């Protein structure tokens, strides 16, 4: 069994400060972002003009559907449009 003294417990508690609030909020939005991305890609597949506008400015397209254009999201959208 592991034993702890107060000093050790304090050290271990200090190792896990809160992550920035914005990071956590963005990660919690992932399911919403996924739904929006699916709809965006579906529309781009059906509408060539819309697809061209999305490809021309991925960040703007994401913002337009309420999704924060973080690098991982932009990369994901780029890959899906290329498929």
């Amino acid at each position, binding site marked *: 069994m592991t034993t702890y003294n107060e000093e050790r417990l304090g050290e271990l508690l200090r190792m*896990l*400060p809160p992550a920035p609030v914005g990071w956590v909020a963005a990660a919690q939005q992932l399911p919403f972002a996924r739904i929006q991305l699916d709809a965006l890609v579906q529309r781009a597949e059906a509408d060539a003009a819309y697809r061209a506008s999305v490809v021309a400015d991925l960040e703007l397209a994401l913002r337009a559907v309420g999704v924060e254009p973080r690098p991982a999201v932009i990369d994901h959208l780029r890959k899906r449009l290329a498929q």
Partner: protein
Amino acid sequence: MADWLDATLSDAELVAGCRAGDPDAWNALVERFSRYVSAIATQAFRLPEHDAEDVFQDVFTRVYERLGSLRSDDAIRPWIGQLTRNCCLDLLRLSGRVVLVAEPEEQAADEVIARLDEALTVREGLAHLGPECQEVLDRFFCRDESYRTIGAELDIPPGTIASRISRCLGQLRSELEGRKPTPPSSSE
């Protein structure tokens, strides 16, 4: 107080809720592991803030996409730890700033991750204490707040905070020493 410290749902129950599409379960899962992921990126691999944020989002994106491939719902914790480690190494290797991460650096990072695993176990123990203890320990140790700030925020005399911290650490120690060790488990 953060939702993270809600110990009513086990890791496995949270994963099951996420698979069922429950947004509250996803929010709680992110909250529960956010500190761990962030700490691996910033402490074990010492990534600057913008890179750490990229890793953080990448890890939770992968978790969301690949929850279905997790063999055991109980294995979420080691799986997230491994995913974060791999994302950090990928970023360092692909960024061009570091062509290859040297083996001693990886070993040093793994030693920090082992300590962070222990820290996460302690936090899990914290979740089983009363809200009063959770709050005072989190504010003092994790948020680095002074006695004066804690006293003002919680409306308690600053002179009583040291004894309260000591009492709560005693409860935390009892909680942790009464637990069975978490067995290591495979993930994907």
